[in-house]
């Protein structure tokens, strides 16, 4: 018994060292400047020349002005398959941590006009939900975390100017796509209850409102 407990303690200690070392270590360096530039352009082939997003077969989200911590967290989530997306897994698992940081920093600086396209008629209802939440169903005011200007903070994403159809699709499918490693729960759990509590038309209204914010 004592031996087994010792072995387990040793294993846990080793894991702790390995994981903390991974967190502190730089890992592989970022690409060369030419390499990084090529990688940025690669991202922009789908996400838009100014990171404004694009409506392909799937809505491809705006990256411009995104919080760097959120950006990097999502890339890690794709790589670790906690967040499932075939295209994003494919492009992100070849990126070193330093490159991911450099990409996040670049997209943070971009600030194009929103892509638009939502129904203006939904905006008023969407603003009300964003600012006040939906008390009847325990949906908190989005602005409490995402900010009155919807620009987010640290790990909380910017929503301002995001594609309305992207927001709708993500919220409606939240738990199907995120937090998929139950042994490794992540920050996506914050949104799980909220996304379930909102009706589709409530989500559409908030999404429309957010899509016009700049």
């Amino acid at each position: 018994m004592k031996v087994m407990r010792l072995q387990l303690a040793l294993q846990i200690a080793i894991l702790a060292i390995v994981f903390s070392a991974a967190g502190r270590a730089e890992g592989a360096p970022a690409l060369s400047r030419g390499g990084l530039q090529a990688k940025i352009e690669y991202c922009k082939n789908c996400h838009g020349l100014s990171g404004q997003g694009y409506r392909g077969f799937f809505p491809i989200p705006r990256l411009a002005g995104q919080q760097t911590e959120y950006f990097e967290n999502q890339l890690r989530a794709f790589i670790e398959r906690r967040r499932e997306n075939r295209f994003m897994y494919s492009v992100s698992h070849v990126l070193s941590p330093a490159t991911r940081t450099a990409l996040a920093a670049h997209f943070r600086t971009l600030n194009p006009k929103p892509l638009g396209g939502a129904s203006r008629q939904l905006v008023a209802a969407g603003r009300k939900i964003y600012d006040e939440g939906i008390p009847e169903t325990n949906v908190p005011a989005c602005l409490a975390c995402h900010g009155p200007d919807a620009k987010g903070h640290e790990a909380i994403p910017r929503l301002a100017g995001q594609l309305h159809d992207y927001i709708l699709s993500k919220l409606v499918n939240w738990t199907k796509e995120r937090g998929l490693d139950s042994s490794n729960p992540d920050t996506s759990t914050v949104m799980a209850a909220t996304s379930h509590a909102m009706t589709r038309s409530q989500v559409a209204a908030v999404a429309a409102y957010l899509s016009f914010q700049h």
Partner: protein
Amino acid sequence: MKPVRSKVAVVLVIVASAVPALADDTESVRNCTWCHGASGQGYSPAPRLAGQRPQYIESQLKSFSEHTRDDPFSRQYMWGAVAALSPRMGRALAIHFSKLPAEAANDGDRALAATGKTIYQDGIPDSNIVSCAACHGPNAEGVRDIPRLGGLSYFYVKRRLKQWGEGYHAAAASPMPRIASTLPPNVIDAIASYLSFVK
């Protein structure tokens, strides 16, 4: 007298309310099928129109009219073909062809199809080559004004990808010239081969 008059009235009402639809032998349709094939499946330099996204057909007609799409065949044939085409008729033609059943060209290199499929679906991230499926759909079906690629002729797709890489222009706001510039010849061959077999 009364029954005949009411029968005549019924016939007149039916004729008057008939929506002018384009038939295969409508003159404007025949102007297209000369080159694009009697059932719109494509022929030599002219791509298949059958089953194509109507918004895409319309956007291409516009790009011919505005001379933004400038590859040699477009310049030689399509600029003149649309010179007298009204937007309204262009839309009617686009809708007409979009509804025709499409056949796959099956003229690519079968040996390259599997590789082409992988590239089509997932791109080649290490070479900064995007997934085509992200925009053109998992079955190359297209959406809105993004064209259906499934079943297009290997020779047509290859030619277009090469041309964009050489600097020819697409319709306004299309990302294809930029994307095609990243594709080496063997990747183009593989993708175009794969697509020619997609139903």
